[in-house]
């Protein structure tokens, strides 16, 4: 499976944030999306998730036989940097509701506690209102939903930036374990995190996506190459 972005463009007034983007993402890989402040990473995610209408272009999946079908919102999972969960529900109620609603599309549903165990949410926290969850726990709840829904494309907008080191490590492990069968695009400002977690690095430069080839470079040389590419952007 591939996820293809074709001629995607978006501008705000006269400013072209995304310019005729053409890119193909491969299944089973985690892509680190890097770009400078204001480069348009969140805009790109919002367009892919249909929260923002693009000016032109399209996104679609191609299966192994080469057949294309347009990306449906149900096939895309989006985890925001600031986790948003319905605060009037308990963790368990939220999961129960989600499992109920998506009963037809979840192939092997498990009891809620199995999912809580998967992301290490303690039993005593499972029946608390989500309002009283910590930032990290809310983030885990967002991740659970995306684990259950098994979206073909998972967009992560700086999800680990404000987590403590333990939770961040847990989340990294979780993302690695879940990458099979889906495409994960991970936006971040932190180069070390991208290098540690991601299989591929993609830069958003001048409104277009550019892969950074690692070739035979060691990690230091690769890092310098990425920074040099981002610097070029500043002088452009």
């Amino acid at each position, binding site marked *: 499976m591939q996820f293809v972005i074709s001629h995607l463009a978006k501008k*705000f*007034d*006269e*400013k072209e944030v995304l310019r005729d983007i053409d890119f193909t993402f491969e299944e089973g890989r985690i892509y680190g999306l890097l770009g400078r402040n204001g480069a348009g990473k*969140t805009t790109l995610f*919002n367009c892919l*998730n*249909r*929260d*923002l209408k693009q000016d032109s272009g399209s996104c679609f999946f191609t299966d192994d036989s080469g057949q294309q079908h347009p990306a449906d*919102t*149900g*096939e*895309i*999972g*989006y985890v*925001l940097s600031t986790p*948003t*969960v*319905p*605060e*009037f*529900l308990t963790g368990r*109620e939220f999961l*129960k*509701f*989600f499992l*109920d*609603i*998506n009963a037809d599309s979840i192939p092997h549903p498990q009891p809620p506690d199995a999912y809580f165990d998967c992301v290490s949410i303690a039993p005593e926290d499972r*029946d608390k*209102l989500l*309002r*009283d969850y910590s930032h990290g726990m809310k983030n885990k709840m967002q991740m659970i*939903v995306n684990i259950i*829904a098994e*979206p073909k494309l998972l967009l992560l907008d700086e999800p680990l930036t404000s987590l403590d080191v333990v939770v961040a490590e847990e989340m990294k492990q979780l993302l690695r374990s879940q990458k099979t069968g889906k495409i994960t695009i991970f936006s971040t400002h932190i180069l070390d995190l991208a290098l540690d977690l991601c299989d591929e690095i993609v830069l958003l430069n001048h409104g277009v996506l550019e892969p950074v080839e690692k070739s035979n470079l060691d990690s230091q040389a690769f890092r310098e190459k990425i920074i040099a590419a981002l610097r070029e952007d500043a002088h452009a």
Partner: protein
Amino acid sequence: MLKTLKQTFMLRCTMHTNMLIHAVRSLPVLRKVLHNDLYAADGFKTLAFILVLIWEAFTTFSVRLIYMGGLVALPLIPLQSDWYTNSQLFMHILLLLTIVGGMTNSKLINVNRTTEYAVGMLRMDAQRYTVANYMYYLFRLVIGFLPFTLIFGLIAHVPLWLCLLLPFTTAGCKVFCAALSLTCRERFGMTDDNRKGNILSKSVIVYVVAAILLGAAYLLPLGEEYALPMPVSAGILLAMIPAGLLGWKKIVNYTGYKELTLQKIRKNYDQLDRNKQVQKTVQRAGISADTAITSRRRGFEYLNELFIKRHRKTLWQMTEVILIGAACVIVLCIILMLRIPKTRAPINEWIMRGLPVLTFVMYFLNRGLSFTQALFINCDHAMLTYPFYKQPKAILRLFRIRLREIMKINAAPGTLIGCGLALLLAISGGTDNPWNYAVVLVSPIAISMFFSVHYLTIYYLLQPYTAGSEIKSPLYRFITAATYYCCYLLMQQKLPTFAFGLTCIAFCVIYCIVACILVYKFAARTFRIHRE
């Protein structure tokens, strides 16, 4: 000083001009036509600048017209007496109001957005800024007052020379009070912030004295038929001119403006943050933490039932208060009619011709706005980030469930008011046409249905909230304001109950059908978090 004044004036004009351009650009159609370079377009900037100048001139005079006309001249009519002359009463009220104004609002440290930019961000010299702007304020005060002290003063037979001097006395009083406030601050450490719990702090004393003087301005002539003798009020007012000149020295030489201004700027920022947070906090605090609350339903009905049960306080408590209030009014009217039979005729007449007032009453009693607000802040804001929740089927399913809930909440007071009106109509003498009972009974219910559908429809079709839970849709604001004005205008009408009620019911039914069709057609596209 003039340079500082010019810089401040240019800053304020630039700010207002840009705000005007921003407002014009946020209109749906114009946004596509007018681009960002408008901010750099000289022609449009000049036009906006002229509009800002016109607004500055308009406010210079309009505020003083309202003050002099509404608070000084207009009360002369009901307060006329043989015990004093009109000019005496005019000077009595003006003197006391001038002192109250000077004490409570000297306008010296007037921290607004221009101050925040000029002193807080651009590091303009606070002393020069304050003094220059105070001079400008006093100039506008004198110019703005002069025509109206002349017009209203001469009508009240105040001598011309005194009318010409009155604006200067007001300015003198402001300056004197401002200087006095700076002295108190320096000598006794008094502040205008009474949060420290010191009951002798300046604001408490000032507001107690101000309340007494305000009472004396109107209640003395009204109750005691007394007004200060003309020489006394004129003498005190004229004495404010030299007092002001003396105070001016203090104002020019005071050195603590920077500290004072920065303190107030910080306080303003804190307040702004608090105001933004308060709405979210109020909504979030409304969630019940009762763990006994559960639901046996499934799917969206499960989500809805938990939402309603956990928000019972927010959604139903006010409705219960409304029900009790409405029941009390109805019972009081019944007692009144039974005890004092002559009240029956006017009540009957009101029910038979005054039903349009009901639209305005129902507008205030309806809970549509707070319902949709709670829906967004505590539920949809989060849920709309999940793909399954944005599926057309899910949106429409939940719309139906929510429509049922908001109708229940609004229909309760509507039904009570309808039954109450029908009962009052019967007790007050009845009507020849029995259909009037049905119309009076059904109209409030129909209006409550209308408001339920109306608020939920515009919520689904315009989804006015941003990701930060702020209402930014100009169209939503326009529609809610238009709803208010339509109800207000209807209230002014006297129409036969039967005709009005039937039209009203028909309109509500048609509106509900059209609104639901629109939601079914467009909500799947429009019900989104706006990230633009």
